[in-house]
């Protein structure tokens, strides 16, 4: 047969594509379930906190519980890190002692594919309130640049006692 090799390759390619698509449907469903469970847990925790607060007020304990000092001073800070092809400039907003937003001001020399991959870790930094997060594999330089930039920005925000 003239085309046996090509046909085998074509069939295996189709099998791979179909199984990846199938996998993605299942994985997406599972990710949504996890997300829903997380939200439900957060809602329950908030409810409990509210109930506790109400009880405390009933007992006449009016004084506010002392707010724990945050890791960082509030404000907007800028920092620069070295990425794949040049400097990455970010602006970090700290509110209530926590990192609430990170805006990338400049990433001119990054390779778009890598940069877009690395961007994900900004969410991790915000949720962990710490710039020392895992780098995104396959986008080492852009990741390191972003982490360095955020770290440099936060140097000016550190609460030293």
């Amino acid at each position, binding site marked *: 047969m003239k*085309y046996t090799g090509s046909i085998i390759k074509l069939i295996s390619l189709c099998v791979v594509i179909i199984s990846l698509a199938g996998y*993605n449907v299942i994985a997406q469903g599972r990710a949504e379930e996890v997300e829903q469970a997380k939200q439900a847990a957060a809602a329950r925790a908030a409810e409990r906190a509210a109930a506790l607060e109400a009880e405390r007020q009933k007992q006449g304990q009016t004084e506010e519980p002392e707010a724990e000092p945050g890791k960082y001073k509030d404000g907007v800070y800028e920092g620069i890190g070295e990425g*794949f092809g040049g400097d990455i400039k970010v602006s970090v907003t700290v509110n209530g002692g926590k990192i609430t937003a990170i805006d990338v001001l400049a990433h001119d020399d990054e390779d778009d*594919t890598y940069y877009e991959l690395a961007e994900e870790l900004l969410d991790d930094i915000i949720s962990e309130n710490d710039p020392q997060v895992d780098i995104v*594999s*396959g986008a080492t330089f852009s990741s*390191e640049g972003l982490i360095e930039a955020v770290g440099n920005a936060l140097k000016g925000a550190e609460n030293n006692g």
Partner: protein
Amino acid sequence: MADKKKKLKYKKITEVIIRVIFFIAMPAAFASGFVGVKLIFNAVGQGKPIDPDKLLVLIGLLAFTIVFGRFFCGFVCAFGSLGDFIYFLSGLIQKKIFKRKKQITIPQKASVLLQKLKYVILALIALLCFCGVYSKLTGWNPWDVFSRIMVFKAPADGYILGIIILVLIIIGMAFKKRFFCQFLCPMGALFALMPVLPFTALHRDESSCIKGCKACRMNCPVDIKLGEDILRDGECIACEKCMGVCPKSNISRPEQKLVRNDIIILVIKSVLFFVMGCLLGLCRFF
């Protein structure tokens, strides 16, 4: 005969211009495409869904290969161009300084065996990604070092292993045509597994071959046995070196029935790839 030589010369010049443009404009295309493969195995290993938006470069490269063969390997890839340039340079040095008439190279039988190595590398990287250990193994990837050099930056700290591997690969490139492409490239392994549409593959009209002529085989950089009517071998990098060297012009593409001049076809494919590359964000300028 003189006409044919002239045409070959023009084709060579066109090829060099195209490859220089791609080398400058899209030096990281091969690595960007391969990121998609790592991403898939990373995601599956962690049980997370795959974000299809991040696979666009990979899908684009594979789709182009299915339609036009490994045109990417033959003309676009910066690592391939680097390899050809180093081999050319090495040949020049061996000829001028060491007065060798024939360039030292690896025998065909050994290289056909070594070609299987790239599948092992592909499988190994996939496995490492699947187990989630790949991202911790920084510092070895010669592509990273190369792409840093391409943007005129010194390699990052801790990339000593990567630099050593890159130097070894460059030494290999001096003694074998397409050393990296055919023996080591995991992206090349993936391309070789893609089916290629039959109407863009090279065809060979064996019936009018000169008896005992092995010009096409001798000139194939990836040592393909050109013993069949249609070249369906995944190793073929669509470089068209066999087309030019055939004394009877027996090797052709079916598409040449539509456009007789193969230089025009080459330019059309290059423009098509360039536009696709720009849309995928591979180009450094657009």
